[in-house]
């Protein structure tokens, strides 16, 4: 009984986690060696590590996206912001003798400015988030192309190399960066009242106003945070390929990020957000991508298979399916109960 309560209470949390475990297990059974992890030169290697490595840019973007979605918004421009910050990183590294920390700071700064732009459009001018961020989604890649002057700018920097592909304590450095960012965000959201306010504003802006929560600044800062996260992701992606590709860096990443937030159980209508589950969502998406690639399935099946599995996960999570499933199970349980009930009364009568 107690266990059932636990299951019931954490149903929402368990669904994405179980989906992830299931996907990993199924892949492992198809692809031999999927779960194996080797240690080479004190670094960990293996498919699972590869998934973590590749998931970091999406994870960072999804973190910002979750906060924005919590305010009942959406940020379509993150892919473009990735391109811009990557371009800034590359061009500043190549064309100036700025120290690396300043280059990174400038790239993060551009992300903040982009977020500020989105935030001002949404919270001050009351433009619908999807429209407001669409502007930068389109214009952003143009800006990135202008910065790189239409070229793929390649660069060389030891520090950036380390960020892109280096290792620290057996794990990729970029994974550490993502973990740091996740922990920091969770702390700020849950150990201050910021998370509560963002969820309150997202779920009921009128009630929030009446208790004295100023929505405007909150919404603005959510977009700034999203811009910052996207810029971080942009730096990592540029560092990874040692160059800035204004056309393709972070392309369609906004959609993966939105999907991850939704997989975590958040609603696009605002309100409750689940930061850690969002990361689980990112891992689900990345595991799928990697699994399909390593399974030897022809590459052209990749997108359709991925979409199908994600649809399945979403269906499992939908309240309607859950209702239907629990109805199905309780029917079975009742059928089982009558027999066990009999058994227990038998026992009781036998006792004295």
């Amino acid at each position, binding site marked *: 009984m107690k266990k059932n309560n636990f299951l019931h209470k954490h149903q929402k949390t368990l669904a994405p986690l179980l989906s992830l475990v299931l996907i990993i297990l199924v892949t492992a059974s198809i692809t031999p060696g999927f779960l194996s992890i080797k240690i080479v030169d004190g670094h960990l290697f293996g498919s699972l590590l590869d998934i973590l490595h590749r998931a970091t840019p999406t994870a960072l973007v999804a973190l910002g996206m979750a906060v924005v979605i919590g305010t009942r918004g959406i940020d379509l421009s993150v892919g473009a912001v990735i391109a811009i910050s990557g371009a800034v990183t590359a061009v500043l590294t190549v064309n100036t003798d700025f120290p690396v920390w300043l280059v990174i700071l400038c790239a993060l700064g551009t992300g903040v400015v982009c977020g500020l732009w989105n935030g001002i459009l949404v919270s001050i001018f009351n433009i619908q988030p999807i429209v407001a961020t669409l502007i930068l989604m389109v214009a952003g890649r143009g800006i990135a192309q202008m910065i790189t002057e239409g070229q793929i700018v390649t660069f060389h920097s030891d520090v950036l190399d380390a960020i892109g592909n280096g290792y620290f304590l057996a794990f990729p450095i970029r994974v550490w960066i993502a973990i740091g960012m996740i922990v920091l965000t969770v702390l700020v959201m849950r150990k*201050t*009242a910021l998370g509560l*306010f963002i*969820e309150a504003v997202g*779920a*009921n802006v009128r*009630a929030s106003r*009446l208790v*004295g929560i100023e929505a405007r600044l909150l919404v603005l800062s959510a977009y700034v945070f999203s811009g910052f996260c996207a810029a971080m992701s942009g730096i990592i992606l540029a560092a990874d390929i040692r160059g800035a590709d204004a056309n393709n860096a972070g392309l369609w990443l906004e959609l993966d990020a939105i999907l991850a937030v939704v997989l975590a159980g958040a609603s696009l209508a605002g309100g409750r957000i689940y930061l850690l589950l969002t990361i689980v969502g990112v891992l689900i998406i990345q595991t799928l991508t990697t699994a399909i690639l390593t399974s030897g399935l022809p590459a052209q099946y990749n997108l359709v298979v991925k979409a199908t599995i994600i649809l399945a996960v979403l269906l499992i999570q939908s309240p309607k399916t859950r209702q239907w499933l629990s109805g199905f199970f309780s029917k079975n349980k009742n059928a089982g109960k009558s027999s066990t009930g009999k058994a227990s009364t038998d026992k009781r009568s036998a006792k004295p």
Partner: protein
Amino acid sequence: MSHLVKENVQVKETLIVEERGKEAQSAVRPLLEIKNLSKSFTGVQALNDVSLQIQQGEIRALLGENGAGKSTLIKVLTGVYPRDGGEILLDGSLINASDSGHAQRLGISTVYQEVNLIPTMSVMENLTLQHQEKTFGLISWKKAEIRARELLAQVGLEIDPLRQLDTYSIAIQQLVAIARALSTQAKMLILDEPTASLDSDEIKQLFDLMERLKSEGLGIIFVTHFLDQVYSITDSITVLRNGECIGTFKTAELTRSDLVSHMVGKSLEDLAPTAHDHSIKRERTELLQLNNVGKQRYLQPLNLSIAAGEIVGVAGLLGSGRTELCELAYGSVKPDQGDVTLGKHSLAKSSLRRAIQVGMGYCPEDRKQDGIVAELSVRENMILALQASKGWWSPISMAEQQKLVEEMIKRLAIKTPDMDKPIGELSGGNQQKVILARWLITHPKLLILDEPTRGIDIGAHHEIIQIIKELCEQGMGLLVASSELEELVMFAHRVVVMKDHHKISELDGDEVSEQAILRTIAS
């Protein structure tokens, strides 16, 4: 006692019905005849055996308090809701509208309170939306413009039909809506609170139009909350209460006090003043002061002061300005004149957060829209106001939160399995208690409650009134708006009576009684 009241009213009714019956026989065939109309929604009888007749060239007021069945009647009449029983005859022939468009083609047009037009389209497009002028099967904009000008002339408007609708004032939009309603040879026109957002000149313009339509033989049903308007424009009045037709009266023959008692279901003579103590037994320390506070098209300027340990009730019919007074006092709507002070703090221009910090609290009328954050837990909902006044950077620790919330759950007897349950899953009464608790933990000096007992069950109703009394004894000042007079009379030391967005009177101490309030509203 209520039994007596009902009998009394019933006697009157039968008399009147008989009278009208005689009249009807002698008069010509009625334009609209509703016979024994009934409609129920899952267990609630929204309309019960309602019958009424309207003649050509008659302006009929349809009156009743919230939930009386006015809007249900209109919706059944225009086919928005299917009816459970009864007949509707227009011009002597049975009609059975399937939707409002069909009703309009049959001759019954409705203009709703919220203008039912498309603000981003031109006036012409709005007017010809339902019925386009065509040449060879294609829309002819030339003809449409001519038609639009005709329709506008009909309501006496000289505006450019090609301009976008929302560039005009609400009053003009309202008239455009009427013009459209008249575009289909309407015989009956239903105006559902058309004057709610109009100023006095605009109302006069509307009334002139109504008079003209009346002289052209149209029947008009006019729904409003403004009694003055009822007496200045209508010929007759039908009163609904709890889904029943209380009676139809000639406007000229019905006194205001009779009208009000029909509406609220209590007659003045029957209300013996209840004996209770309205005096405050301590010296007054003024808390809230409203000094000539008002806002155009919202609330006429008024003065009000509330002392510590005092409960001031706000009475008035629906739409009289009760909620508006609460909103201005709290500051969620900013007044455009006058000053609000709480203790030494002037609040007319400060933020809500500041108002809360100096000791204001407000439980709004619409709990679902403005009160609860349904997805969040009981605990989160409860600490929201306190946390907001502290700011996000100084969080209340979880231990502290749990302590506060547990205390409140105990003190207000809130029924919830645990404090982390989403508040949306609680019953209305328990939600209301959580919202009350939300403010109590901020230790407000002044608490404003708008309809604190609406939509909650009887047990919780009683408990909330007890809580209100206790808070007052502890020295809190309270401003309580309510449509339930018995309730107000039970705890208020003073009662402000609102009417047509004015404060018309303030009853103090022993003057406070249901009878006195009703008489004031009717005066």
